[in-house]
């Protein structure tokens, strides 16, 4: 197409001839998934609201949930954990992605193999691994004992700290993958030019690499933060019953406390919080476009 004026966005010419056909096409393609979203997402969320309002004791489940010390403690613990894990994951993920890009052959293979191993094995199995490491007489204690560093059994298992390393390990691939593709997309000529004109590593990082990978760091970070807020298995098994996150408290309301209305109210608060954070971040940083 050789036009002198700027052509509009890639509007397909055939579509302009027959807009009606295009609309029928969009309808046929989009209706089934959108209907599914209404049933699979809309109906359960509505049921959640009804369930929360249906309070046997006659009070308001939301105020009851928000004044429960167990819930508030768990909320604080969850947000702190998600924030720390996100920061660590993004920093470590940036280093990891860079290391993959600049490693010589066999080291690169090793780093990629580690990443794939983590992606392919289930979260349950990885969490067991961390349990076995962190148990009072577990693998870390064994290693520390053999190196002569430790003679007291390790006291980390089932404390709030115990979930941190495991959460970082579970979340790390979600930060590494987008940063890897952002690094691969940097204009090599720009890097070469910087080197030719004598820019040092720090200047090159500040002016070329960092701006290029910042969007990926943000979208990876948002995803990790939001997923960490709702994580269930890893914090529950490693933090133990005394250090439950919000997810653990919610399941406790249903499975042991017999207060599904409170569980539903807490679920709504959790869903509302995470989806609000996700939507705001999506508007600001186009997180879904990094994915879709």
């Amino acid at each position, binding site marked *: 197409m050789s036009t002198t004026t700027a052509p509009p966005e890639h509007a397909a010419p*055939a*579509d302009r001839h*027959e807009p009606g*056909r295009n609309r029928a*096409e969009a309808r046929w*393609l*989009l209706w089934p*998934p959108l209907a599914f*979203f209404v049933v*699979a*997402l809309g109906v359960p969320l509505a049921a*959640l609201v009804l*369930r929360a309002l249906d309070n046997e004791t006659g009070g308001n489940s939301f105020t009851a949930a928000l004044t429960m010390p167990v819930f508030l403690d768990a909320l604080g613990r969850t947000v702190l954990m998600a924030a720390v894990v996100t920061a660590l994951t993004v920093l*470590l993920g940036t*280093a*990891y992605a860079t*290391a993959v890009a*600049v*490693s010589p052959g066999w*080291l*690169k293979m090793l780093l990629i193999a580690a*990443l794939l*191993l983590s992606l*392919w*094995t289930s979260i*349950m*199995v*990885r969490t*067991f*691994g961390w349990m*076995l*490491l962190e148990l009072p007489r577990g*693998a870390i204690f*064994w290693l520390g004992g053999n190196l002569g560093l430790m003679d007291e059994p390790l006291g980390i298992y089932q404390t709030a700290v115990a979930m941190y390393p495991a959460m970082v*390990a579970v979340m*790390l691939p979600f930060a590494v993958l987008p940063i890897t593709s952002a690094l691969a997309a940097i204009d*090599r000529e720009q*890097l*070469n030019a910087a*080197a030719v004109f004598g820019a040092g590593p720090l200047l090159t990082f500040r002016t*070329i690499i960092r701006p290029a990978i910042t969007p990926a760091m943000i979208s990876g970070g948002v*995803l990790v933060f*939001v*997923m960490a807020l*709702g994580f*269930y*298995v890893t914090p529950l*098994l490693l933090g133990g019953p005394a250090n439950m996150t919000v*997810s653990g408290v919610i399941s406790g309301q*249903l499975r042991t406390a017999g207060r*599904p209305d409170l569980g539903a109210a807490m*679920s709504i608060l959790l*869903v509302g919080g*995470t*989806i609000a*954070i996700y939507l705001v971040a999506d508007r600001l940083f186009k997180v*879904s*476009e990094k*994915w*879709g």
Partner: protein
Amino acid sequence: MTDRSLLRAIGWYRTPIIAIGLLASLLFFVPFLVVVATSWTSGSFILFPPTGFSLQWYETVLTDRQWLNSFWLSVVVAVISTVAAVLLGTLGALGLTRIRSRALQRWVRTLFIAPIALPPIAYAVGLWSVDRRLPFLDDTLVSLVVGETLLAVPYVFALVSSGLAGTDPSLRPAASTLGASWPMILWRIELPPLLPSILGGALFAFTVVFDEVVLSVLLLPPGTQTLPLKMFTASQEAFSPELTAASTMVSLLAILVLGGAQLASNRRNRAARLRRKASA
């Protein structure tokens, strides 16, 4: 295939960065190796380092009906949900390209990715509340399968969308100008080059559903367990080497299947590159 330009730009920082990367890779390797090591103990407790060597716990798992039933239940749920998620995610990714309005396009894309951000436990409580209101859904796998499908759709959608971004956008209008109807264009022109992305999405969806445990905690009919749920309850009740033996086996299976798929797709890509070079 080291990245020369990036290497030069990073300069002497290379060594410390690689060192950090290697230390971080221990976070991936070590827990897995510990699980594997404890599974071949000849004792009856999970101990590290393992005492002796035997495969007795593998035999125990492989002859235990409960473990086998939970494995097959997981396979069934994952297959059904994967098929549904592949259909819905692919339709969504294709449908997205037909939307004209940029704003609407962004909203639809956000909607399709959003289930990744949905806290699974809260969503499980929602599905559980639906089951309480519609008693005929109790004792069925319907709500579990629907839920797992929703959680898997974003991965298929993301992979097919990025596959679509790499296809030639002028093929569709060209075929349309030549008089092909849109279902025919879809079937003959658009879907064939997307097949690798769709298969990749299917594999990803299957892995996600197969490993997902939170929905099954609340939604499974009494007396049935998926494999991750069986592992979860076993870890809370009796922490025996059965658990690590089962973990090792299912991980090795995943590594074989997914690694094989990865190799096959690498080989296909290389063959395609060579063909292109030959025809150029």
